[in-house]
């Protein structure tokens, strides 16, 4: 009953979702998916779940996690579903027995590592990449790898989001420090690296030319490039940082039937197309990459693998090491 297209080629009445079909009641989704994407999927979901009242709470990953932390402390988790961009947080939630096990039928088509028992499943892919301003740097000159950022010619021209305030930046710090050691970041600091609050600040400063190069989420740059802005993505030769953001159901959900159906919908082809419209990559092989981006498989083999368990367990230590090395004067 999902993804019905009324193309008129022999669609019969039996294809239409019956009024009264599907899950009922209300369901609450906490997510960091951008508001404009949510607005786009609302009508599609309303079609798929005609009798379900779907409510959203949207905020940056860290803010959603803060809200959940408060609710966990109060023993009143209000969310049925969670879709945020920090895979390591799901490991923490699973360990605390806060998640509900659901092996969705569509999980078989997800090409990325997922929780074996079905506690969480990747639902969208964000990538941490290098981006540059094409008015300031020629394509030939542009850095090709993480190592290239240490070239003295970029001194004082590079910005990155703070791992202390941004989940995706935290993953980046963890992955790159595993690959090259913390000395890599110290060298970046010596090359005048500036640290900003988050991706949007960096995106704007890349546009104005305050920075020539930024370490940033791919979707921000794809979106800007799509509008004709002079910015380009570099998929580093020494590995893009792939961040598969999962979807999971809370144990405390009062409407598991609806939560299961929605999970399965997001993993379906239709749900994944909505993800791609939001400039992110799909977790399925049968869905196109976002506009202006190469297919995931072209850079997946070379990706820097983040150690999610380590990221889940050593948050304080990793953040503190980054801070002491980079953010202390």
């Amino acid at each position: 009953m999902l993804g019905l297209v009324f193309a008129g080629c022999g669609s019969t009445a039996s294809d239409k979702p019956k009024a009264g079909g599907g899950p009922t009641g209300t369901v609450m989704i906490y997510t960091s998916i951008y508001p404009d994407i949510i607005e786009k999927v609302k009508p599609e979901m309303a079609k798929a779940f005609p009798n379900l009242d779907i409510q959203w709470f949207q905020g940056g990953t860290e803010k959603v996690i803060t809200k959940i932390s408060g609710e966990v402390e109060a023993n009143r988790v209000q969310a049925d579903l969670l879709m945020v961009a920090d895979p390591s947080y799901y490991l923490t939630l699973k360990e605390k027995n806060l998640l509900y096990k659901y092996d969705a039928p569509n999980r078989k088509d997800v090409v990325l590592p997922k929780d074996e028992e079905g506690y969480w499943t990747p639902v969208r892919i964000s990538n941490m990449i290098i981006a540059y301003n094409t008015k300031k740097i020629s394509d030939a000159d542009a850095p090709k790898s993480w190592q290239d950022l240490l070239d003295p010619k970029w001194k004082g021209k590079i910005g990155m989001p703070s791992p202390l305030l941004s989940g995706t930046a935290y993953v980046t710090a963890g992955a790159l420090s595993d690959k090259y050691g913390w000395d890599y970041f110290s060298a970046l600091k010596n090359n005048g690296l500036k640290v900003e609050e988050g991706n949007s600040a960096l995106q704007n400063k890349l546009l104005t030319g305050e920075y020539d190069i930024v370490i940033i989420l791919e979707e921000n740059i794809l979106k800007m490039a799509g509008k004709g802005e002079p910015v380009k993505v570099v998929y580093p030769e020494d590995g893009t940082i792939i961040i598969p953001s999962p979807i999971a159901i809370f144990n405390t959900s009062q409407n598991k039937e609806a939560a299961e159906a929605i999970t399965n919908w997001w993993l379906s082809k239709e749900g994944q197309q909505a993800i791609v419209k939001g400039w992110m990559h799909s977790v399925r092989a049968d869905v196109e990459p976002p506009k202006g981006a190469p297919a995931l498989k072209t850079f997946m083999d070379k990706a820097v693998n983040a150690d999610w368990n380590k990221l889940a367990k050593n948050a304080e230590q990793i953040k503190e090491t980054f801070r002491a090395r980079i953010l202390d004067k």
Partner: protein
Amino acid sequence: MVYLVINSFIVDGSVNFENYRSVYSKIVNWTALINTFKLSLLVMILSLIISFPLAWLVGRTNLPAKGFFRTTFVATYMIPPYVGAIAWTQLLNPSVGFVNTMLVHLFNLSESPFNIYSMAGLVWVLTLFYSPFAFITISRALEKMDPTLEEAARISGASPLRALIDVTLPLMFPSILAGGLLVFIAAGSCFGIPSIVGMPAQIEVLTTRIVTYVYMGDSNGIRDATALAVSLMLVANSILFIMTMMLGKKDYVTIGGKSTRPNIVDLGVWKWPAVGAAVTYGLVTVFLPIASIFVSSLIRTYSEPVSLSNLTFENWLPVIQSSQYLIPIKNSFITATAAATASTVIALFVSYLAVKTRAKGRLIPDVLSTLGGATPSVVIALALIIAFSGNLVLNLYSTLTILVVGYMVKYLTMSVRTISASLSQVHPSLEEAALNSGASWLRTCKDIMLPLIAPSIVAGWFLVFMPSFYELTMSIILYGAKTKTIGVLLYELQTYADPQNASVLSVLILIIVLVGNLIIRKLTKGNVGI
């Protein structure tokens, strides 16, 4: 209700005493504490140095166009600090800052004269956004002042300047301190500006540390954050305590029974220089950032220099046409009005208790309100989630009420400080006279006290309304599906949509507030408003 929330902190704070050891075993947190203290103090001193002369010019001299200047000097208070900070980084960043590039061009400099990413830059931006607290508090008190003592000084042959320094200034002490304290607390508990301006400069303050701990996403993080937050409250309250001590037992009564107008000092030859100074200050502090925000809202793309071909009203169209903007504006109006009104009522009681009675523990509510004001918003938001998720009596989660409570906890201290300062300047003989003539206590309050402190009540109301109207940090964690506020919308636009749209919304907020202010002023013939 408010105290219930604050109490939940104190319980939190004392329970995890062992956390303090873990938190303060880290050098960085000490550095942050010292930075916060240093910053707040510098911002406070600078704000007072700027605000007192301006308030005096507007309140007590024959400066032309006073109404215009008064609005100008508080206008920065109407810009959400989050947006204003971004505007200043656009103007003064060292690589492509607009003002910097212009100056380099004009004077053939070899490098940018200003770097906003520095301690000085941080002090500058914080001062601009928070000095209106001091200005509003001081100018209200100046205008209500009984001129007798000044006249006595003048008659005894003191020059106007001498009278100002020896008589007016000391008499204004409670208001100056109240204003200064507000600035101190606001600067110390602010997260937005330090994260935007301070982070690229690698300056850590307590609030950025606290948010870092909260974002750890586990109970430990929350506990460490609380421990730090409690230290911030302690710093703020020790300042409050020191200030109260400084006021001591002296007599600051300046509002007597006679209905008098404060005397206006004739500036004489200094009139036009004074206007020049006021205009310059207004241009730099208000016009520049607002112009920067306004231009941003018209700009087609950030990647091109500002030119006519790169300006467009296109960004305005979706904002004006879309209904998604109307609901948050309505929500923010409701919550800010409710928070401001409730805070004003509570503040009246708290101030009266603290200033005019001898009850035991009369200062406790006052101290509690300072606690709330000094607590970083993110910690308040967490405490509210924990307190009001229905485990306790009330389930306010995801309602507008929880937002109102949050705003009250955070901003109550604004109205308490403002009203307390002006109450302490009202002579007890006035009340006694009324009571002795047989008026009831309520009647005395209604007919004597309230009219005398009315300007401060209004000022206090606005001081709560404004920040509540565009509050961001708490709202983003506490809002629900139907209770989106302007602050949340602004954050969304800034983060995901287009920064240009965020600028459009900021300009709209500014217009709404200014127009609202004008209407109120017109309706009340200039008695009410800022």
